[in-house]
C-alpha cells in the first residue's frame, strides 16, 4: 500500500515537472521565431497527413519537403498526423511560434473554425492544400485542391471515346464515402445511366488489391461477361488484372478487356507503357508549386483572383504515354 502511494506521488511529481518543462520549451521556441523576422527566410508551418497513408501522400510530402527548403528561402516546420485534434494542436503551436504561413491538409473537414480565427488574429496566413474544410472562406487565403469529380469525368470521357460496341463494366469502388470514391464513382454512374452502359458488377474493394481480385474472380466464376474494368485506384486495378490472368482473359491495348486505374503510381504507368493496361487518371500530389506561387503573390501584396484553385490533372492513354511521362508523373 505504502509503496503504491509513494509511486503515485512520484508519478504526479514527474507529470508536474513535465508540464513545467513543456512550458519552458514553448517559451524558448517562440523567442527563437522572434529572431527569424530579421532574416529573409519566410517561416511556414506545414501540417499534413501521415506520409505512410498512401503512395499519394508520400509523393506529396516529398514534394513539399523538396520545395520548402532553406535554399529556396523558407524556414519550414513539418507536422504529421491523421487525427484532427492532433493537427489542431500543431496548428496552435505554429500560431504561437508566429509563423508567416500555415499550410494545412486537414484530416477532417470539421472543427477548424476557432483555431483559424486565432491564426487570423495573430496575422498568420492560412493556405489549405489537398483537402478542403468546413469553415468560412474569410479564414483562409487560398485552397488548392484536386477535383475528384473532374478526374472521374476525364476518365469516363476517355472511355466514351473508345467507341466500344457494347459497354459491360466491372466497377471497383474505393472506401465508400471518401472524396475520391464519390468523385470517381459519380461520373461513371451518371454516364452509364445516360448512355445505357451495362454495369455488370459494382462493388467496393476498399482500395485493396486482394479484395478487388476476389470480386473480379467471383464475376468470372459466375460467368459474367464484361469488357471494361474501372478501378478507382491502381492497387485495385492490379488485383483485377491478377484475376484476369488466372482466367486467361486478355487485357490491355487491343485486347478483350480494357483496364482503367487512378493515381498514376510509377509501376502502374509502366504497366500502361507495356500495354497491359489502357488508362490511368492522375490525382496530382504536387501542390507545392501552386503554394509557392500564392505565397509570392501575397508577399508582393497582390490579391488572389480566386480562393479555390483546382489543379491540372491528366489522364494517360496507353497508346500515347511516353517514358518521360512515366518519369515525370509517376509517384
Amino acid at each position: 500500500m505504502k509503496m503504491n502511494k509513494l509511486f503515485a506521488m512520484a508519478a504526479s511529481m514527474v507529470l508536474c515537472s513535465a508540464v513545467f518543462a513543456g512550458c519552458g520549451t514553448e517559451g524558448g521556441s517562440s523567442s527563437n521565431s522572434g529572431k527569424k523576422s530579421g532574416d529573409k527566410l519566410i517561416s511556414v508551418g506545414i501540417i499534413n497527413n501521415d506520409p505512410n497513408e498512401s503512395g499519394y501522400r508520400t509523393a506529396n510530402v516529398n514534394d513539399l519537403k523538396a520545395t520548402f527548403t532553406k535554399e529556396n528561402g523558407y524556414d519550414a516546420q513539418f507536422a504529421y498526423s491523421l487525427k484532427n485534434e492532433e493537427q489542431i494542436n500543431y496548428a496552435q503551436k505554429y500560431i504561437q511560434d508566429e509563423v508567416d504561413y500555415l499550410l494545412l491538409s486537414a484530416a477532417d473537414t470539421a472543427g477548424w473554425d476557432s483555431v483559424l480565427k486565432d491564426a487570423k488574429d495573430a496575422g498568420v496566413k492560412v493556405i489549405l492544400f489537398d483537402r478542403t474544410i468546413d469553415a468560412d472562406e474569410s479564414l483562409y487565403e487560398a485552397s488548392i485542391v484536386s477535383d475528384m469529380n473532374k478526374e472521374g469525368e476525364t476518365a469516363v470521357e476517355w472511355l466514351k471515346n473508345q467507341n466500344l460496341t457494347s459497354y459491360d463494366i466491372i466497377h471497383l469502388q474505393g472506401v465508400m464515402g471518401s472524396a475520391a470514391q464519390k468523385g470517381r464513382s459519380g461520373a461513371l454512374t451518371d454516364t452509364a445511366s445516360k448512355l445505357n452502359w451495362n454495369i455488370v458488377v459494382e462493388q467496393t474493394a476498399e482500395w485493396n488489391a486482394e479484395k478487388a481480385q476476389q470480386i473480379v474472380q467471383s464475376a468470372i466464376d459466375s460467368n459474367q461477361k464484361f469488357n471494361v474494368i474501372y478501378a478507382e485506384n491502381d492497387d485495385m486495378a492490379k488485383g483485377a488484372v491478377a484475376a484476369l490472368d488466372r482466367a486467361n482473359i486478355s487485357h490491355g491495348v487491343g485486347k478483350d478487356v480494357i483496364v482503367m486505374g487512378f493515381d498514376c503510381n510509377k509501376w502502374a504507368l509502366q504497366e500502361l507503357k507495356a500495354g497491359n493496361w489502357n488508362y490511368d487518371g492522375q490525382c496530382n500530389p504536387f501542390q507545392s508549386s501552386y503554394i509557392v506561387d500564392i505565397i509570392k503573390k501575397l508577399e508582393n501584396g497582390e490579391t488572389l483572383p480566386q480562393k479555390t484553385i483546382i489543379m491540372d490533372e491528366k489522364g494517360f492513354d496507353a497508346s500515347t504515354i511516353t517514358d518521360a511521362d512515366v518519369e515525370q508523373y509517376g509517384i
Partner: protein
Amino acid sequence: MSQNTKNNTASSIITAMFRKQIFIPLAALLILALFNFIMDPSFFKITLGHNSNGDPLLSGNIISIIDYGSELAILAVGMTLVTAASRGQDISVGAAIAISGSVVLRVLCGTNSRPDELQAPIIVAFIISCFVAMACGAFNGVLVSVFKIQPMVATLILFTAGRSIAAWINNNELPVVTDSTFSVFGGYIPGIPIPTPFFIALACFVVIFLVLKFTTLGLYVQSVGINEETSRLNGLNPALIKFITYVILGLCVAVAGLIKVSRISSINYSVVAKDIEMDAILAVALGGNALGGGKFNISASILGAYVIQFLTTTLYKFQVQSDALPAYKAVVVILLVVLSAPIVREKIAALFRKLRPARAEQNG
C-alpha cells in the same frame, strides 16, 4: 424394437452433436451451402481452365473459398492458442502481417524497390520474416505474460504502430517483385491446378495437430487458461506458456504475410490484411471457443475461418450493394454468434430431448 433403438441412438447423436463444439461452424457452413444451393446451384460448379501462362487450374467459388480463406484459417490457429492461454486476443496481427510482408519484400528487393531479379532466395526472405514476426509476437507475449498487461491493450501498441513500421522498413516505397517464382505462394504451382495457399494452410494444420498430439502444449495452454494459479502450483510456468502462444501466433502471421504479399507481388501498407484481426477473432468465436480462455478446439476455429470466407464469397457472388455489404455481414454474424451462445444451444438440445420420447411412442 430395433427401429426404436435406432431412432433413440439417432436422436441421442443429434443431442450429442449439439453439445459438440464443432457443431456451430459446421451448421453455419451447411446453412450457407444450402442457401447457395437453393439460390443458384451453379455456385458449386468447378471448371478446369488455363491461366495466361497456359498452366491448368481449377476455378469456381469453392476453389476461391479454400484459396482466399487460407490466411485467415492460419491466423485462426494461432489466435485460438493465444485466446485460450492468455484469456484475450491479439489485435495486432493485421499490422504484424504488414511488417512481415514488408520484410519479405525488403529482403527480396534489396535496396532497389523494383529489381529485375531477386536479390536473395525466397526461402531466406521467408525465414527472416519468420524471425521478425516471431519477435513481434514475443514483444506482445512479454507485455502480456511478464508485465501482465491486458492482451488487447498490450497488442494495441503494435496495432497502432505496425503499419508505420512496415512503411519505414521499405523507406516508404512500394516494392514490386517481377519474378514469377515469387507469385507461386499466392497463386499456383505450374502444373498443379489447386491454389498453393490451400496447401500451405494444410501444412500448417498438420503441423499444429502433430504438435498438439505429441506434446503437452495443448494441455498446458488449456490449464493456464482455466486457472493460472493452480497451473503454477502444479509446476507449470504460466508466463512461459502464454509467451509461447504469442510466438506461435507470430509464426502464423509470417506464413499469412508471405501468402498476402505473394498474391499481388507487392504491398500496400495501409490496406494489406486490413481488419483481418477482427475476422480472426470472429473465427475463434464462431468455432465456439470461449473468448475468456480455457478449453479450445482448433479445428472448430479453422472451420470458422472458412465460414467467414464462405460468407464473403457468397456476398460477392450475389452482388450485394457496396454500402450494404457490412450490414449483411453483421446480420449473419449476429445470427451465428447468438446460435452459438451456450444458453441457446442448451435450449435447442432440450427441444430435441423433448422430441425424442414423442417419436419413440410413435414408432412403438
